[in-house]
């Protein structure tokens, strides 16, 4: 398929950790352990999971802000995993990121105009200052900021406005794919909706592909075409939004979804709750076999001994669970 922008194959990011004590033994924190997925042009892929499941690491590893330990990141068919700064630079034009903390991701000593214009200065050094200014002002209008604020500094803006600045900076080069790393989790609920709608509008206008990382399942449902569920750095389930939300196959997905309130009171009363017991196991010592087995209501001997592989489960659907068939069509 030619419209695949980004193909990730068996991506691993391990951080070396030295345990305490004299000559502490080296072990590895497996932040991401064999993640594979594709992103097509113009689509949005939601990535959900609890905090600590490797979502932010995934965002950074895709952009080579953290060098992956193993695996491939194929950007437009070309492996960019582990590319150096210089080799990576031209590719950054098409691959941008919006960060979680809106204010902290803006340089406090720069004006909004300088912040949004920075990628232009890097990639189009031939532009004159007033051309850059013109583009920045136009873009500020597009993302819902008043263009005459161009000389203001980040600390003079609210969180939502700062995130608009961050979005403007990410799209100023007209990228093909924007990775959004929990872009709204630091914002008030009322403002979250505005930012989500802005992202969706931009996606429509510019044909952007989005990777939208969040722990909030209702937001992901709102704007994703496909959804990927991560747990302890591994893909648990991947599928089209409607199929996945209507009929979650993986016990973890079921548990996550059952925690989300359903707006319809009848359905809300009728549904069964699958509650997650226990805490997220330490990623330093993940459980053997299936990583989810310590909290899974369906776990048995097989789950303890064999790691389930991601297997196809219907069109566009993949699940990593030995017993997913029991959850099918219930």
């Amino acid at each position: 398929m030619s419209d695949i922008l980004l193909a990730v194959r068996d991506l691993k990011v391990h951080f070396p950790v030295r345990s305490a004590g004299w000559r502490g033994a080296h072990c590895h924190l497996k932040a991401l352990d064999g993640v594979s997925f594709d992103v097509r042009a113009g689509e949005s892929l939601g990535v959900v999971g609890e905090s600590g499941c490797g979502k932010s690491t995934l965002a950074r590893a895709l952009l080579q802000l953290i060098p992956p330990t193993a695996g491939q990141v194929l950007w437009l068919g070309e492996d960019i995993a582990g590319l150096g700064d210089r080799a990576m630079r031209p590719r950054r034009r098409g691959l941008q990121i919006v960060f979680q903390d809106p204010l902290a991701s803006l340089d406090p000593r720069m004006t909004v105009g300088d912040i949004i214009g920075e990628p232009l200065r890097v990639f189009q050094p031939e532009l004159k200052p007033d051309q850059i200014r013109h583009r920045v002002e136009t873009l500020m209008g597009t993302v819902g900021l008043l263009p005459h604020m161009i000389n203001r500094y980040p600390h003079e803006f609210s969180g939502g406005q700062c995130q608009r600045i961050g979005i403007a900076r990410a799209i100023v080069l007209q990228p093909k794919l924007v990775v959004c790393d929990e872009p709204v989790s630091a914002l008030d609920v009322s403002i979250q909706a505005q930012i989500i709608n802005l992202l969706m509008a931009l996606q429509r206008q510019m044909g952007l592909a989005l990777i939208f990382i969040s722990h909030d399942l209702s937001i992901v449902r709102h704007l994703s075409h496909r959804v990927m569920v991560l747990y302890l750095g591994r893909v648990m389930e991947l599928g089209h939004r409607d199929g996945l939300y209507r009929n979650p196959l993986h016990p973890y997905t079921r548990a996550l979804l059952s925690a989300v309130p359903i707006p319809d009171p009848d359905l809300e009363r009728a549904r069964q709750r699958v509650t997650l017991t226990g805490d997220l196991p330490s990623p330093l010592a993940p459980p053997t076999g299936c990583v989810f087995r310590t909290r899974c209501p369906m776990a048995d001997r097989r789950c303890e001994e064999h790691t389930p592989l991601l297997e196809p489960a219907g069109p566009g659907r993949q699940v990593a669970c030995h017993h997913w068939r029991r959850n099918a069509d219930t």
Partner: protein
Amino acid sequence: MIRSSPPAVELQHDIKGRSLWQDAVRRLARNRAAVASMIVLAVIALLAVFAPMLSPHPYDEIYWDRIQMPPDFANGHWFGTDSNGRDLFVRTLYGARVSLMVGVLATAVSLVIGVIYGAVAGFVGGRVDDIMMRLVDILYALPFMFFVILLMVMFGRNIFLIFVALGAVEWLTMARIVRGQTLSIKHRPFIEAAHACGVTRTGIIFRHIIPNVLGPVIVYVTLTVPQVIMTESFISFLGLGVQEPLTSWGVLIAEGARLMEAAPWLLVFPATLLALTLFAFNFIGDGLRDALDPKDR
């Protein structure tokens, strides 16, 4: 509401943002001690610059008939004369020129070297950082006075040598401060964001790191200038500083201290000016620290 809302025309123009620097200047302007100190320094600096026009006496003319005279307004020797019969007022202000120039230039040298060195070491990190900072440690351990005396003996007494020697020593602390600050901001998301935007490492250091570490650096600068002046005075006090008939505060104070009992004015005037200058710099440094970091009071 007595004042009406701002006129609508204003919306047509760009709103001028207030940078963190402007906020800091505003806070500094409210600090009385700092403002007074800046005025004092400005007056001393102006006097030093216009010294020759203020007094009828040249700084190196020897009045054989007026040796070691107390202050006297009638003949224009406002601060008296020294043991060689030269006018002390003009000499003190010429001393101010040398002392302030040494202070500012040596600090500027240390600023440029220290900031770039520290920012590079901190940002690049790893082995490069290790090597760069070990070098600083080694230079730190060298006995500074020995180094200066050696230079003086080898190249003769020369005012530029003093700049070099002082600048070469002062940048070490600057580099350490800047490195520490750099380490504390290099993992902040805006640096990562710049990286994601394709800014080069050099670009990140000069456009993002250095402007953001400048706050503590400026405070340190205002404390380095008096330190350099003191060191220069000390070197001159030892007789290794500037060459006669040129003078500096250190030289004047050395001579004044020698003749303290016979001619106290020889000590009082230069020492007062030196003390005033040092105080002023310290007050400004204090004010700047408060102004730049309002949370950390």
